[in-house]
């Protein structure tokens, strides 16, 4: 009996390939025999991977052999293959395949190099395609636009965050309603905000991510519901009955996909909402531009109407519109800006408005990184093809006699070129297919390696267009790598062949020169990539090791929704948080406090501060970071107090109002003065004059790459701000501590959901995920290019040594020292390296702008980086040249001078 018919993927693919190649009448025999042998090997105790590998090799070799006979014309009907003189493509291909089989090492090297290069290029392209090129999943997505408001005066702000927000602010809801009344070219215009909904379950409260949306959003996105209806006018009127539209996944999860979900009530935030529709899987407006990280992660699960009460509020919304056919986005954007200018008088803050393509707004600044990476992998592809061209040129030199004989027998130049091109194309095709397979197999790894915050993560895939791109790259590689060597090798002079030995061809010199040129080009491109890798690596390590100001290890933020029903006062909320922290410190190895936003967790609060000066107008400081804390906070987070004291129990309601300022704040606004005892007010409560009682060390709050900003700390009991983030300092296992903390919270206050848990070290890692990805990929690609270029140097020098054995032998016989020979040979390689480095230096220098935008605290023309790459490359080139050079030193003059 044949046990286990289950095969690994590789074996399954190989079997299928074989089945396609083998004539139908033979297939059962081939298959039977191989399956028999496989099961025999299983009984002999071969492990599964070994059987699979062996079996795949057998199937593929049978397929290759029979496929040639079956699909390539010419010779199949002859006895044991045809003769060469006939002159059709089929014969060329057979000849090529036979030729390649007779040079297995060259063939394997070339195929493997093509496979690596095509595989890497295809993988990177799959990301580019998924994120940037694949259309959005809406009908006519190119007509979708996102509308922004602007605040021009922020463009000059010293804070980078403001500068970048100056042009992309979520519009105010009232502006959105104004735009509905003017015609700027939108067929429909919708507004939405991300929202969390509390669903009370028997086992505690759960927060669902959803969106409050106007009916216009559904019209703009133009996706039909799979059940019931979308949100529509007048669902959004203030006094309309509350309704909800569900996502497909939520509907399946909670209602088991039953149609009778329609009409039932879902109690959200304590209010019953009638279910009116279900949207298909994948539907959902892109998560709004405003960062709403207090919501649980994932796709929106439900939609409720954004009440037109928002007309009168100061709510920020996201706005998406569908352009009328034929209206270019630039025109709509201009008209919108003009209309907004007319309305500006009404609002004091928001001045401009404009529209950009929805896809552009989603991918943000990611395209620059992705195009950069595609360019980098393109360089590697170029280095690989030049490397192969070098190998093939060398192989062409050693095959001159063969070429010359063919030419002597009457083969024309064109025909010789054709034969050689068919050979290189066959290798490129094999390599390309292997590369595509490689990209396909390693795709799950690639996905894991991608930064988690990359937009459109879910669209990336090995789609048909990615495969077509891979094939096109393969074709390009075939042309780049094959043409030059074929043309060179085919210039055979029949006289040469018959007259002299391979190593003394006069025309071989042209080929050698070409090969040296290729190596110089390879070294220069590898140099460019290495410079990029060195700059990015340097920048990343600076970013990562930036002073944070506090120990992040073991810090966890648990965000609470202390008031899901909206019926607690701020004092009650704060009291609840205070109670929870006192319970949490009872857990072993846990210290706990609470804050409004933990540094480096991706969120911040800011306010305007008025610094009081005796006998003068107060100095106004906008956008000062505001950190509202329980008194234990600075202790738990381990932020040192460098002057004065920390908060105490006495700093409570009714006590004298106090504040602690950060070191930067103290230095900037009271330079050289005593800070303790100074007074300030905040915009939150301008009536209270706060006394500065302490100075805390600086912490980096807004991101590793964002400058330290002035910060004011206030005790929670004296502030009007919520402190919904429990801060845990955990010694020991973080997951365990979080689980215990959840249990404590659920038992102390069952109606209080934990909406998000942030392990700070992970959050910091995620915040630099894009630079890390960029750096790792470029470092890897640069390494690959460097190895290829060094192999090129090695190959050229080896060839020179082989060619000059006789010359070297003569010199040695005349008493030359072996070290001199080594020096001479290495010197030749070194010259190639210098030429490549100089060329690379020029390219890197002039292309420095491409990388400048990705660098942190280092310039794109950083001289020490360039110098170290120059030194490194030249050293490696010398090593690559030294290995073959040693062979020159041990040349035996007698051997070398012996005639062929």
């Amino acid at each position, binding site marked *: 009996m044949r046990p286990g018919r289950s095969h690994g993927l590789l074996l399954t693919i190989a079997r299928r390939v074989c089945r396609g190649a083998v004539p139908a009448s033979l297939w059962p025999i081939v298959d039977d025999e191989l399956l028999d042998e496989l099961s025999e090997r299983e009984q002999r105790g071969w492990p599964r991977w070994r059987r699979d590998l062996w079996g795949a090799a057998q199937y593929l070799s049978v397929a290759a052999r029979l496929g040639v006979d079956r699909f390539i014309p010419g010779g199949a009907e002859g006895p*044991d293959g045809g003769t060469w003189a006939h002159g059709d493509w089929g014969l060329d291909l057979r000849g090529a395949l036979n030729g390649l089989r007779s040079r297995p090492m060259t063939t394997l090297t070339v195929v493997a190099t093509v496979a690596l290069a095509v595989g890497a290029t295809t993988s990177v392209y799959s990301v580019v395609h998924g994120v940037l090129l694949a259309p959005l999943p809406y009908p006519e997505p190119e007509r979708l636009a996102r509308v922004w408001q602007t605040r021009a005066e922020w463009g000059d702000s010293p804070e980078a965050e403001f500068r970048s927000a100056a042009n992309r602010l979520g519009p105010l809801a009232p502006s959105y309603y104004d735009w509905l009344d003017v015609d700027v070219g939108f067929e429909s215009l919708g507004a939405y905000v991300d929202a969390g909904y509390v669903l009370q379950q028997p086992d505690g409260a759960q927060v669902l991510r959803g969106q409050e949306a106007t009916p216009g959003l559904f019209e703009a996105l133009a996706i039909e519901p799979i059940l019931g209806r979308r949100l529509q006018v007048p669902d959004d009127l203030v006094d309309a009955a509350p309704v909800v539209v569900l996502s497909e996944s939520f509907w399946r999860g909670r209602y088991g996909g039953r149609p009778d979900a329609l009409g039932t009530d879902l109690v959200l935030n304590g209010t019953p909402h009638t279910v009116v529709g279900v949207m298909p899987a994948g539907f959902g407006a892109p998560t709004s531009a405003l960062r709403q990280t207090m919501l649980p992660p994932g796709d929106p699960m439900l939609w409720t109407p954004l009440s037109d009460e928002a007309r009168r509020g100061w709510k920020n919304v996201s706005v998406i519109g569908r352009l009328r056919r034929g209206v270019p986005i630039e025109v709509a954007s201009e008209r919108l800006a003009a209309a907004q200018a007319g309305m500006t008088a009404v609002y004091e803050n928001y001045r401009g408005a404009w529209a950009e393509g929805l896809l552009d707004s989603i991918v943000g600044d990611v395209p620059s990184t992705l195009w950069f990476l595609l360019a980098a992998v393109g360089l590697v592809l170029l280095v690989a093809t030049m490397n192969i061209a070098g190998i093939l040129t060398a192989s062409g030199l050693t095959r001159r006699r063969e070429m010359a004989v063919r030419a002597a027998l009457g083969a024309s130049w064109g025909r010789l070129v054709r034969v050689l091109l068919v050979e290189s194309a066959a290798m490129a095709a094999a390599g390309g297919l292997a590369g595509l397979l490689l990209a396909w197999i390693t795709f799950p790894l690639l996905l894991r390696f991608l930064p988690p915050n990359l937009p459109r993560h879910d669209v990336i895939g090995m789609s048909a267009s990615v495969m077509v791109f891979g094939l096109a790259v393969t074709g390009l590689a075939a042309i780049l790598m094959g043409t030059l060597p074929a043309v060179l090798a085919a210039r055979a002079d029949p006289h040469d062949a018959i007259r002299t030995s391979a190593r003394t061809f006069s025309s071989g010199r042209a080929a050698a020169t070409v090969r040296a040129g290729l190596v110089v080009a390879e070294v220069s491109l590898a140099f460019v990539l290495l410079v990029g890798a060195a700059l990015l690596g340097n920048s990343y390590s600076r970013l990562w090791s930036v002073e944070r100001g506090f120990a992040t290890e073991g810090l966890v933020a648990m965000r609470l929704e202390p008031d899901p029903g909206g019926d607690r006062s701020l004092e009650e909320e704060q009291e609840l948080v205070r109670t929870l922290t006192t319970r949490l410190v009872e857990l072993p190895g846990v210290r706990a406090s609470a804050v409004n936003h933990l540094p480096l967790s991706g969120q911040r609060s800011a306010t305007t501060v008025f610094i009081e000066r005796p006998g003068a107008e107060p100095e106004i400081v906008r956008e000062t970071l505001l950190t509202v804390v329980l008194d234990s906070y600075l202790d738990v987070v381990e932020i040192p107090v460098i002057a004065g004291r920390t908060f105490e129990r006495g700093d409570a309601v009714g006590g004298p109002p106090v504040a602690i300022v950060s070191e930067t704040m103290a230095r900037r606004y009271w330079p050289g003065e005593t800070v303790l005892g100074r007074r300030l007010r905040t915009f939150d409560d301008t009536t209270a004059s706060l006394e500065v009682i302490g100075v805390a060390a600086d912490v980096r709050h807004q991101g590793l790459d964002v400058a330290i900003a002035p910060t004011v700390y206030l005790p929670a009991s004296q502030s009007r701000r919520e402190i919904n983030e429990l801060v845990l300092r955990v010694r020991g296992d973080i997951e365990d501590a979080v689980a215990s903390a959840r249990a404590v919270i659920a038992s102390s206050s069952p109606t209080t959901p934990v909406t998000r848990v942030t392990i700070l070290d992970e959050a910091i890692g995620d915040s630099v995920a894009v630079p890390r990805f960029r750096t790792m990929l470029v470092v890897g690609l640069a390494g690959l290019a460097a190895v290829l270029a060094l192999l090129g140097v090695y190959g050229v020098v080896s060839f020179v040594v082989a060619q000059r054995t006789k010359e070297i032998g003569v010199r040695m016989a005349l008493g030359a020292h072996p070290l001199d020979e080594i020096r001479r040979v290495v010197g030749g390689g070194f010259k190639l390296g210098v030429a490549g480095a100089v060329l690379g230096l020029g390219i890197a220098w002039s292309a420095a702008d491409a990388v400048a935008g990705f660098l942190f605290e280092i310039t794109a023309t950083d001289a020490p980086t360039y110098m170290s790459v120059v030194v490194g490359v030249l050293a490696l080139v010398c090593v690559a040249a030294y290995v073959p050079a040693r062979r020159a030193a041990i040349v035996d003059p007698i051997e070398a001078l012996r005639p062929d």
Partner: protein
Amino acid sequence: VTSRKADLGELESLIMLAVLRLEGEASVARVREEVAERGGRQLSRGATYATVARLQRKGFLSLSLGDSAAGGRSMHHFTVTKRGLETLRTAQQHLIRMRAGLESILKVAK
């Protein structure tokens, strides 16, 4: 002039001879063993199949798929067709005629 189609290559001859020797038990694996043992050539699996396929296409070999024998192995074997036998016979006769008089050089019996 004999048509190219009727020519027999060396490999083809070896395989047909092996099939004849095996008398109805000529599976691909046995053929390979036979050629290796007597013909002194290690044929790759691919080359064997390719040649068998070619001989089939020329109508020199035919394939019978037998019933499953005990143990579940399905049985298949090749036989040399009448046309195949004729071609082989002609080829061998040519060979023998070409050989005539060279026996001492080739060190074969007359």
